[in-house]
């Protein structure tokens, strides 16, 4: 059975700043990142949809330590964002000084502004892309 929205296609769209997900045709829940089966009801009947990229911050951290090869990115903020389509997604925060990130971020509205490409390392089988969010004005 063919995979409806493979990593490669999801990633290519995110590189063009488009966030794709899958909408379950049985229960209506959005699954992102893509899977074979609906994350809620395990239905295989899902359709590719473009998500708004709008949501609110559920949690965050400012990283001062990272993996071998990614030290130049420090410090940076990682987020878990609840999208307005109600799915959570991991991403990064831009436009806010990572050293000042505090609990006040939680609950704030954000919008995805770009997909940031991680070019990959010797273990990663190529690149990947992180959705980058900015606080709504």
């Amino acid at each position, binding site marked *: 059975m063919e995979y409806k929205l493979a990593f490669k296609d999801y990633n290519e769209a995110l590189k063009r700043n488009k966030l794709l997900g899958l909408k379950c045709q049985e229960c209506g829940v959005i699954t992102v990142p893509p899977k074979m089966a609906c994350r809620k009801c395990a239905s295989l009947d899902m359709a590719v949809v473009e998500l708004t990229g709008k949501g609110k911050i559920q949690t965050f951290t400012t990283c001062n330590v*990272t993996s071998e090869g990614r030290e130049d990115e420090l410090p940076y903020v990682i987020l878990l964002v609840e999208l307005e389509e109600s799915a959570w997604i991991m991403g990064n925060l831009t436009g806010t000084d990572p050293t000042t990130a505090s609990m006040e971020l939680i609950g704030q509205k954000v919008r995805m502004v770009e997909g940031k490409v991680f070019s990959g390392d010797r*273990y990663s089988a190529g690149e990947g892309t992180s959705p980058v969010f900015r606080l709504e004005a």
Partner: protein
Amino acid sequence: MRKVAVVGVGETKFSAAQEKTSVELFAEAAMEAITGSNLKPENVQALFLGNVLGDFSEGQGMVQAFAAENIGCRNIPANRYEGACASASMAVRDAFMWVASGFYDIVLAGGVERAAIMGTALATRTFAMFSDSRYEFPSGITFPALFAMLAHLYAARYGIPIDKLKEQMATVSVQSYHYGLFNPKAHLRKEVDVEAVLKSFMVSTPLQLHDCCPFSDGAAALILASEGAAKKLTNRPVYITGVGQSSSGPLANQQDYLPRLRAREISSQQAYDMAGVKPKDIDVCELHDCFSIASLIAAEGLGFFEYGKAGEAWMKGEAAIGGKVAINPSGGLKSKGHPIGATGAGQVYEITKQLRGEVEPERQVDGARIGLADTLGGDGGTLVNIILQRGW
């Protein structure tokens, strides 16, 4: 199903980077378990071995086959388990099931890891492999970062000011360091106070260095035997009376439960139901404190404390020896250390020793009859629970 007992146990010291190979470390732990069970290597019918990162730390795959042959267990089936930090507990649970089923009578289970030898940068990279590599690693997720996010989420969900939560988390680390001080096999043996925790290097907000477990080298091993075989080998069998295991998807997709980890709640319920016991019956628990916040989340998920209240419990001594349940009298991952592929077997080693009354008096839980091991892999992707009870 037949009853299955832990007959003998063995463990190396957990440590910083050291020069023994994985095969050598496991051989030392395994022979302690085998000879302690009044057995010889030829009596062992199969090996179940946790090992996560041997490919990266030593360029050694398939370590289980070399480990079996090295200790004289020639030509036996040898299986390797990889479930991140819960690998050895998966191995123990499978070993249990093979003996319970009647297929084997005597098996060796355990784990080995050289996490420290890799150094912090490579270790951090490889530990990040237990998050979703396609969809979450591009954001720069690390092992501390994911628990750091759970800490902030925990504070927000339960309405705990972050400074108060940090003091609670520091108290968890202080307790673990204290017990580890009396454990000669512990990796980090030093007295650390709350002030020192709060002054330590900020790894990933809000988690500081003393909120985090170390990368350790070490091995642990257990002999499991059927009730009939165990009774011939020892008059103090420790029975495995309940086991549970569960899995979850990537962190963001656990959204309906976070900061709770659903896999733990399912896994521990399986173990409680199978053993016919409740959280209040547990005398001693070794739980997966890879980070201080992970202890709070674990103690709540295992049913010891209400959600959002575990930090207060630690501050009141309810998680200490003499409290409601003695948690991590070994020093836990924080002080005893975290050689990830061996950690779960190390927890079962500790519980077995506790139930036998064989640990140092400063950290012995007097009269302990029922113990629980809790091992978490990665971001909750793998969860294993094992309940052990005195058989005499």
